[in-house]
Every structure is written in C-alpha cells, then in structure tokens.
C-alpha cells in the first residue's frame, strides 16, 4: 500500500517539479543577464489566467503558448522599469506581483464572469506513459504513467539551456552582461538588449509554467493557485547556484517536498510531522544554503545593479 502511494507521490512531485524548474530556468536567464526577478510569482499568475483562457478558446496547446506569450509581454514591464529606467529590481518585482493579482482577477471577470475562478474541467493535453518506466513494479510505475507530456519536456529543457548559455554567442554575451557589464560594453556588446532578452525569457518560461499549472494540473484558473510556487522556484534557483543541472536537482527536491504532505501523509515518520512543517522545508534549506553552512552560493556578480551605460 505505501509503495503505491509512493508512486502517486512521485507523480505529483514531478508535476510540481515541472512548474518549479521551468520558472527557475526563467529566473536563471534573467539573473544571469543581471536583472534580479522576484516577480516570477506574478509572471506565473498571468500565465495561469491567460493559459486558462487560451485553452478554453483554442485548445490546450494554444493555451500553453498564450500563457508563455502573456508572461513575456508582462515581463517587459519589469525590463522597461529596471533596464531602461533603473528602477530598483526588487521594487519593480514587488509591483509585478501586486499588479498580477489584480490583473488576473480583472481578466477572470472579463473572461469567465467571476473574478476568482474559471469553470473547472478546461481542456488539457492527452497524457502519456513513459515506456518501460511505467511498468515498474510495486506501484512505482504509477509515477510514470498518465503523465502530462510537458513533464518530460521540462527535464529536456536543461539541454537547450546549457547549450545556449555555454555554446552560443548570445549566451556568452548574456552572462557577460550579468557578470561584468562594463567590460562587456567595452568589447562592443550592448548590455540593455541582452537584459531585455533575459527578462523576456523569464517571463515566457514563468508564464508557460503558470499555464501548465492551470491547464494540465488543476484544469481551471483559480485565484491563488500559484501558492507562492514562484518564490520556491526562486529558492531552487539560489540553491542550484544559478546552474541548470543543480537547479534541476533543487527543483526535484522541492517538488517532491510539495507532494509529500498531500500524498504520503499516512506514511510512517511523515504522519508524525505536521504538513505545515514539511511545507517549510524548501525555505529552511535555502536559508541554510545561502548562509553558507553547506557549500557556497555565488550569484551573478552584477545582478541587481543598474548599469548606467553609454545609453544613459
């Protein structure tokens, strides 16, 4: 019995992983370009409402893409404020989060006739079984069957991310903008467009993750459904030291931690712990990591700093 639960818990953990990893990868592009983005939660919220609307109107594939596109468009507010107008990155991120809540309610009233949620059961993608893994014994196969196709896509996203960051001209310049914008500009690299691109990618990925949450997991838009996952994604990004594979491991850990109180509340040991304490794990782990008690955390050197380049 508990092993069957374990399969279900892993399945749910993988769904949370997908949300966290996609969003954290977005944050990675933004912060590696030098723009701190604590507005990930808000960008995700915009993805949930626009994704839900998109899937109702045009089907789930379009819904996911519309969610990503809306996140991208909304993130341009953050880019404009921080890159062009040198507004403090934290202030702008907070405003993004504040406005997203209001915007989502406003749009929900517009699309669905009520501010807090859409009709349940909106269309979603056909689920898939992962060959071989879905035949695992002891109920573990349940973790790999009936899965949203977006879940494996999230894992595979590590490949293009690593390639772009390390092997392309764009990726190298993006990292230069985040580490040493002055030197980059001296070498003829224009910092501002790169930072716009970094923020835009973060908006697209966080919006996509939000749409995935609404379409593929909850099958509705509901106010507050992101439950602070944007901040946990930020935690995974920091714990993963802004590096794609380590961020993947952090997202997996935190994703499973999210699923444990929901699916394994009766398992031995876990049943003794209140679920609220399990929910604290990502935050506590991140504080311990950033305080330097385990390993070292090295954010991009110029992240959070306005760059008053030749354009200013």
């Amino acid at each position, binding site marked *: 019995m508990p092993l069957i639960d374990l399969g279900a818990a892993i399945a749910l953990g993988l769904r949370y992983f997908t949300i966290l990893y996609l969003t954290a990868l977005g944050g990675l592009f933004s912060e590696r370009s030098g723009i701190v983005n604590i507005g990930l939660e808000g960008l995700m919220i915009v993805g949930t409402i626009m994704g839900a609307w998109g899937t109702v109107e045009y089907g789930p594939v379009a819904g996911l893409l519309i969610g990503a596109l809306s996140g991208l468009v909304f993130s341009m507010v953050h880019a404009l404020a921080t890159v062009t107008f040198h507004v403090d990155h934290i202030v702008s991120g907070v405003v993004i989060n504040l406005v997203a809540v209001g915007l989502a309610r406003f749009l929900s009233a517009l699309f669905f006739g009520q501010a807090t949620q859409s009709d349940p059961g909106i269309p979603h993608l056909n689920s898939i079984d992962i060959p071989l893994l879905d035949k695992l014994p002891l109920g573990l196969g349940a973790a790999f069957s009936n899965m949203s196709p977006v879940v494996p896509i999230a894992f595979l996203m590590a490949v293009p991310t690593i390639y772009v960051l390390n092997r392309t001209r764009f990726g190298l310049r993006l990292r230069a903008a985040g580490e040493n914008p002055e030197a980059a500009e001296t070498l003829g690299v224009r910092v501002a467009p790169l930072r716009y691109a970094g923020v835009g990618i973060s908006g697209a990925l966080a919006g996509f993750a939000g749409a995935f949450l609404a379409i593929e997991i909850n099958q509705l838009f509901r106010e507050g459904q992101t439950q602070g996952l944007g901040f946990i994604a930020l935690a995974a990004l920091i714990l993963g030291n802004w590096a794609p594979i380590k961020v993947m491991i952090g997202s997996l850990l935190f994703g499973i931690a999210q699923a444990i109180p929901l699916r394994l509340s009766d398992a031995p040991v876990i049943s003794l712990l209140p679920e609220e304490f399990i929910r604290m794990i990502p*935050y506590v782990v991140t504080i311990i990591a950033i305080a330097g008690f385990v390993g070292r955390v090295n954010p991009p050197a110029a992240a959070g700093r306005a760059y008053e380049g030749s354009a200013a």
Partner: protein
Amino acid sequence: MATAASGAPKRTRSPRLEFVGGQILAFVGAALFAGLVGGVIIVLYGANPLFVYATVFNYATARPEDIAQVAENATPLIFSGLAVAVAFKAGMFNIGVEGQYIVGMLTAAIAALYLDWLPGVLLIPAVVLAAVLGAVVWAAIPAILKVKTGAHEVVTTIMMNGIAISLVAWAILNPLKSTGEQSVDLRTNLFPGKALMPSIAEPLGLPSSVHLTLLFPISLLACFFVWFFLYRTRLGYEVRAVGSSSGSAEAGGVSIGAAQIKVFLISGALAGFVGLNHLIGDKGYLGNNYEVGLGFAGIAVAFLGRNHPAGIALSALLIGVLIRGEDGIAISTELPTEVLIILQGVLILSVVIAYELVRRAVARRQLKEEAVVEAAAPAES
C-alpha cells in the same frame, strides 16, 4: 557645490529646493500618467473614466465615516511603509515585513488568549509588546545572518515569509484552535474584550462599523519618531551614512554591521504593528483568512513616499483612498474593482520612474554647472 565659486553661476535657487520641487512635479506628472493609463483600461471596458474617478473620490471623502475608513485603511500601510523605509535608509531591503507582521499577529494572539488575567490597561500593552517581540525575532534571524555570513537579506526574508505563513497555519489548526462549538471558520478563540484596541470612531460620533482605533494616531506618532530617529539622532545619522555610502561610513568610524542589525530590529518592531488593527481593532481573533499582502504593500507605500516619513503617511492615505474607492466602484459601476489594483501598480512604477528621471536631470544640470564653473575659473588651480 557649484555655487561656491565666486560669481560664476547667475542662478541662486537652492539646488535642494529645486530637487524637492522637481520631485513634487514628478509625482503629479506620474499620477496624471497613471490616471491616463487607468482611463484607457476603463474605456476599453466600456465605462467612463471621469465618472469612475469621481466615484472613487466621493466614496472616500463624502462623509466623515468615509474619511475615517480611509484612515483605517492607511493605518497598517503607514507602519509597513515605515518598516521598509527605515531598513532602506541603511541600504537594506526588508521584504520580510510580510512574514514579520504575520508572526507578530501570532504572538499577539497568544498574549491576548493566555494573559487574559491581566487588567485591560496592562493587557493591551502586553499584546502590542508581544506583536513587536514576535516580529523583532523574525527580523533578527535575517539581520544576524546578513552581518555574520553575508546572506543577502532579500533572499532570507522571502524565505522567512514562507516559513511564517506555514507556522501560523499550523498554530491556528493545532495549539490555538478554537475550543468552542464546531465553528466552520478555522480560527482561535475570541479574545477577551479588554484585549481589544480602544476605538476612536465611536467617541468621534462615527458608526462602529468603522474600525478606526488608537492605532491610527499611534501610526502618525510613529512617523514622527522615525523622522526624529533618522534625522536627529546619532544612530540615525550613522544609518543614513551606511545607506548612502558604506565605505565612507566605515572610514568615518561607523560599525556597519552593528548599525545594520540595530536598524533591522527597529524595522521589525514597526512591522509588529502592521497586523494589529486587523487583529485587535477589527476581528478580535486570529483566523486563517487573515489579511495578507500588507508587507508587500508597504514596499509600494515607502517608495511612493520617497522613504520619508511624511511622504509615507501621505502615500498610505492615498492608497487608503483607492481601497475605499473599490467599494464605490463595486456599488456604482459595472467595472471589476481590480482596476484600482492595476491603477496602483501603474502609479507606483510611474512615480518611481519619474523620480529617477528627475534625479538624472538634476545630476546632469549639476554636472553642466560645475563644468561652467571650472571653465570660468581655469587659472585658479
């Protein structure tokens, strides 16, 4: 400054006055711009923006109780704005006001429930003190970690916010769960009446539905104390020195770590007041549907008010007007009230951008004037 050189510049206006004037102009311009953007959204929705804005204004100012409602809305925002601003003056970002006031509400609720043997004159101060202590402890962890390990307070306070929410959720469901008849609400028992903050609405002849309490005048006093602290005390001077240039402050003999820890604790203490009007001015119990987001709103209020206590009070009242206006919009128009939240966001961003543009313009002008002065007196060196 440029005017020090004899006779060169003709203009004698003080640069400081010019700066403040520029800021006010910037605020007005940005507010008009935000109104315009909001107006476009309202028109797209098929309503008349002028009517909507007039409705907001009427609902916030028509009757004395409307103004009192605005003051009630502003009370927590003043405290959270001050909490953010004090830390910011020392070059730190307290995004943890959110978690700090939530923990403060928890400790205040514990005091209200378990110190009920105290007479009211002592119980209310004890509850306030408990809120402050809880919030200060929650602020102390990131403050100490920052100074001792270099952990950035933005990250640690975000994480502390997450922990606070789970901690309070657990406490309401477990040790503090109400013992009365099975109520549907998840909440603590009702606090004793003598633990509640005295209302100033009824003595003023206002209906008791307005939860305007002593906390509003206390919040204005807090503005004064924060101003006095920042601009008239030694620690306040050091704090501002650390915030504007930590290198020169250290060279001047200021211990940066000590100043930062102290000011972060003061910030936490102010955060402790944020949830009190909701807790002991309005509800009289701690439920799982407590008011959230006041800490984040404080960041907006602080930056609207340029991190100055007077500016913070004014911006909190302005946001208070917009919150009150939501009722008006809900009653008198077909428009979703959320349009005002969007308007707030546009307002904050455009004001902050406008301040930045003014700062750049003034800096550029100063640079030019200095260049003129240098050109006029080349032989002196």
